[in-house]
């Protein structure tokens, strides 16, 4: 009896001691912990001419849904004098955007002359990898100049006219080539395509809902891009909310892809037009273009837009008035708003109204 208890104590302590370190990536921008119960599956292997070794991509999922992609990468880094193998673990979200990295055990990142990365260096690297618009995008490896003796202000880069100083400001100090290699891995197009392809193959109602409910711009746009016609009815709240709050690219997608039978209902037109004020300049033009082509157009929808006349650009204002000119049923409020704008001394485009006789 006592022995059995003892055995249990031993087993438990062994368990605690032998337990694997939980995976806590050094940098991970997704809003959850990498849990132990997460399952992994291999998505595939990618090999390019300039890869040192094939890159194996893993999909990590929890019980509810796929969560992210990761890969343990072995790659080479060279400067003019010396080369080495670099190990890194990269993380991407479900639409192929970089979200974090980790070092591989026993292989910390080093700068040249083997100086290990400091905490600041690691942080700086993550910042660089988060920057999709980095100058490194435009540079060929041969164009990187890392000579201390060359004065930064003298050196003009090949493609963008930026100076070596600007490159220096973006990369980890003393690790120019590592920074370059890692950035191009994080943003490798072939890897990204593989990841988005996999996510697409996994799409089902559950995953679409997961993507829509997330806060990630990329997730929501991906969901919309994979909508069937009926999804616009099922998920009306979501796309209306995105129209109001999401990035211009997503708004544009929704406006351009709203199915015909959904768009031709007055309530939808009104809901979309009601939010005109919250739209960015380009979305407004897309909407005006759509209204121009719409045969059955709710006059209430047009009225909603007339509340925002003084916020419009010159061409948009004219465009709107042109659209109204072709409609025979305008609400009283629409006309009243236009007349008010015509009299508004602070409205710079009031003078355009003179060209439209039907208003006066």
């Amino acid at each position, binding site marked *: 009896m*006592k*022995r059995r*208890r*003892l055995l249990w*104590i*031993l087993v438990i*302590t062994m368990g605690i*001691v032998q337990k694997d370190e939980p995976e806590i990536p050094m940098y991970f921008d997704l809003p959850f912990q990498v849990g132990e119960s997460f399952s992994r599956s291999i998505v595939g292997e990618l*090999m390019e*001419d300039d*890869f*040192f*070794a*094939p890159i194996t991509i893993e999909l990590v999922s929890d019980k509810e849904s796929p969560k992210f992609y990761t890969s343990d990468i072995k790659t*080479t880094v*060279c400067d*003019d*004098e*010396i*080369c*080495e*193998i670099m190990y890194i673990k990269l993380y991407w979200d479900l639409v192929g955007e970089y979200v974090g990295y980790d070092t591989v055990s026993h292989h910390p990142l080093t700068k040249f002359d*083997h100086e290990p990365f400091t905490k600041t260096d690691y942080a700086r690297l993550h910042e660089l990898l988060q920057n999709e618009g980095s100058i490194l995008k435009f540079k060929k490896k041969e164009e990187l100049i890392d000579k201390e003796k060359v004065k930064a202000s003298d050196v003009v880069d090949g493609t963008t006219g930026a100076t070596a100083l600007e490159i220096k400001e973006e990369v980890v100090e003393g690790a120019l080539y590592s920074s370059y290699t890692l950035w191009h891995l994080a943003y490798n197009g072939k890897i990204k395509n593989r990841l988005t392809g996999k996510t697409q193959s996994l799409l089902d109602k559950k995953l679409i809902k997961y993507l829509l409910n997330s806060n990630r711009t990329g997730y929501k746009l991906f969901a919309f891009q994979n909508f069937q016609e009926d999804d616009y009815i099922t998920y009306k709240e979501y796309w209306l909310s995105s129209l109001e709050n999401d990035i211009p690219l997503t708004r544009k997608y929704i406006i351009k892809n709203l199915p015909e039978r959904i768009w031709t209902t007055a309530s939808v037109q009104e809901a979309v037009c009601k939010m005109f004020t919250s739209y960015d300049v380009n979305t407004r033009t897309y909407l005006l273009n759509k209204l121009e082509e719409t045969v059955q157009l709710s006059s209430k929808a047009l009225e909603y837009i007339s509340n925002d006349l003084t916020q419009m650009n010159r061409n948009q204002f004219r465009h709107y008035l042109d659209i109204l000119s072709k409609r025979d049923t305008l609400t009283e409020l629409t006309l009243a708003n236009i007349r008010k704008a015509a009299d508004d001394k602070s409205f710079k485009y009031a003078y355009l109204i003179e060209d439209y006789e039907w208003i006066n």
Partner: protein
Amino acid sequence: MKIHSTSRLYIAVYLCLMLVFNFFILNSAVAQEQEEKELKLPLFNLKNLDGIAIQNSEIMEKVVVIDFWATWCAPCIKSFPALIETENSYKENDEVIFLYVNTLESANRDTAYIRNFLLSKGFDFQVYMDTPQAGISLADQLDITTLPHKLIVDKSGVIRHRMTGYSGSDEELINDLTTKINELLAD
């Protein structure tokens, strides 16, 4: 629950063992480093591009310069001329041998690729492939993670010099190698 005194003894022994075990793991790495100072060239069996092998027995009692390189390593390739020149200066001397060992190569570059690569650059020296034996390569055993990586081994098989990188100066490399080789020849 009450723990019997013998049980307490078992627990104490168990805990001590755990501590010792962990301590051992942590320190084995350190131990390895200390041994490095007197590292002998491990036994090896490297095949060249035609499949003909070279073994330790062939390099016994000689001063051996081993240059580890890979096709993707630009500084490695740039340092070849200086190495070849140094090698030629010892052409008449049987006691000096130069080995060019390809290691840490890209996964998709096979012997055919390497052969063509060297030919296209005008190099015709013998190349030995550091193919892993039972999962372990010479580079693993020698802890080679940077390239170019040169070892100079004395006549008794002890690694006396390790040089990494290429400064860009052929003259510097030739002088450095020559000085070191001559020192070891004099031993």
